[in-house]
């Protein structure tokens, strides 16, 4: 396919150079620098102490710190629930909006809006809606008799986590819907029709026609969701700051607080490096598994 005319020795490097330089300088170097920091004691409050090399001490301290394991557990809970719930709601909504009905374009536009809402704005709205005494959410729950007294959303540890999850799912499920809607358009309508004529019910059609057709987009969506939620910062930080009593302090929040509340840059970098390592390992394993199963099918 015209390999000859596409061959060139220096041009691709020249074209790639600015991007690579920028990324190397402001992304890869910082990551490397973070790893370096994690091997040193860096305390901004005591600059005269210098930045001595301390080997793996930060990591050893980390793994024996109950707060770290607490954060790890919270991260796991938050990520799992956020991914599963967003995925299910997103997929269900996509299937619904893929039906033929009047006003479909309008409905699609409405559903996609929350994804466009900036996190900070979303937090402001939801904090008001979840206000214990005057919030509309408690009012509606009380009105329908689902609760007998107002929930202290951001005061109770468990409900604070639920609140953060609600905002997370509200802002991100539309993305799953968008991806699936695009993929559903790619599943040939005549295949669905053929299955219907052959007597396949709704569930069978979903299982044998729709679901396999979505496998590629499912893989991408789940990988993205896991990465995004595992490293989630803004929503949690602005909504609860990790509280109350560290009940929403994920690893990412802990990293930031160690760095900018306590100025333990080295220790914070160690936590951050662990997060990056876990995500890299997860992505690698996930992609390998998907690749293998994809090949067998």
């Amino acid at each position, binding site marked *: 396919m015209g390999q000859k005319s596409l061959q060139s020795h220096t041009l691709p490097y020249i074209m790639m150079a600015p991007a690579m330089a920028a990324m190397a300088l402001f992304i890869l170097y910082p990551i490397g620098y973070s790893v370096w920091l994690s091997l040193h004691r860096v305390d901004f409050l005591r600059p005269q102490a210098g930045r001595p090399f301390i080997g793996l001490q930060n990591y050893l301290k980390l793994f024996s710190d109950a707060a770290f394991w607490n954060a790890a557990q919270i991260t796991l809970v938050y990520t799992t629930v956020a991914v599963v719930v967003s995925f299910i709601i997103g997929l269900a909504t996509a299937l619904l909006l893929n039906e033929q009905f009047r006003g479909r374009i309008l409905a699609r536009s409405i559903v996609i809006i929350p994804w466009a809402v900036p996190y900070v704005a979303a937090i402001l709205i939801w904090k008001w809606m979840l206000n214990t005494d005057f919030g509309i959410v408690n009012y509606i729950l009380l009105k329908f008799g689902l609760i007998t007294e107002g929930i202290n959303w951001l005061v109770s540890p468990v409900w604070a986590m639920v609140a953060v999850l609600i905002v997370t799912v509200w802002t991100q499920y*539309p993305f799953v819907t968008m991806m699936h809607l695009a993929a559903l358009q790619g599943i040939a309508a005549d295949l669905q029709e053929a299955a219907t004529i052959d007597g396949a019910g709704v569930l069978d059609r979903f299982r044998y026609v729709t679901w396999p057709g979505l496998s590629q987009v499912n893989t991408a969506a789940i990988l993205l969701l896991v990465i995004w939620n595992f490293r989630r910062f803004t929503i949690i930080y602005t909504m609860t700051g990790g509280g109350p009593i560290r009940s929403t302090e994920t690893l990412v929040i802990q990293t930031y607080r160690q760095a900018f509340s306590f100025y333990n840059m080295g220790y914070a970098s160690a936590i951050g490096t662990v997060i990056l390592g876990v995500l890299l390992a997860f992505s690698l394993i996930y992609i390998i598994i998907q690749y293998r199963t994809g090949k067998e099918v």
Partner: protein
Amino acid sequence: MTSEIKWTLGSSIRFRKSVKSFLVYILVILTCVITFFPLYWMVLTAMLHSGSIFRYPPLLFPPRLSLESFVEIMRAYPLARWFGNTIFVAVISTFSALLISVFGAYSLSRYRFKGRLTAITAILITQMVPPPLFVIPLYVLFRDMVLLDTYTGLIIGHTTFTLPLCIWMLKGFFDSVSTELEEAAMLDGCSRVGALFRIILPLSLPGLAATTVLAVVTSWNEFALAVTLMNTKSKWMLSVGLTSFIGEYQIPWNQVAAGAIVMVLPIVLAFAYLQKYLISGLSAGAIKG
């Protein structure tokens, strides 16, 4: 006889279809109402009089509305300034990111060169970096470079922050443009860069639009860098300025909601306008890989 059977068959199918479409409508309306409600509530709260915010039970359709909260918040806070700062940083960093990534994406899409896989791996790894791990070293670095609390620092941060995503998306779009057209153009004497600008870019305009929106939105929404790098209140981004409202008990909720609207409106309008590009763009970028 046969016509009768046909008739019953037809009517039962029609009946099932109408039940189904009724159910679909109910579910669609429910989904839309729940999804849209927070935004409705935001607009409504912003248009309440200060006196009627703490009305209980809350009114779903209050009789009297006003815009006093917008006037108040503009008067009491440098909201216009924050708005301008945010636009300034978003526009410059998006422009820089696009300029750099168009070439990078083209190179990755059209050439098979040594180090290409390394470049792709590097781009993917950057997508997994947790924000603080990116913020900490940049903070230390910018402290040494005296770039803390400057727009330059934040613009550099936002440009590089969005760069990998831009390259990745644009590469996906360029991949879907056939090479034959540019080869034909080059046979006609067009240079390679000329072909990129005259053939590829116009053909991937939807993708370019989607990438632009995504870059602007990323910068507009960015919080971790903005809150860490910028100290002076007048230099804040909207995201940081609005966050400062949280926990400040003297700010009435109608003004908080008004602030949220100021931040939401431009983005939602941009999305509404570019929605069709964005959907095809995202799916191309995310699925094709």
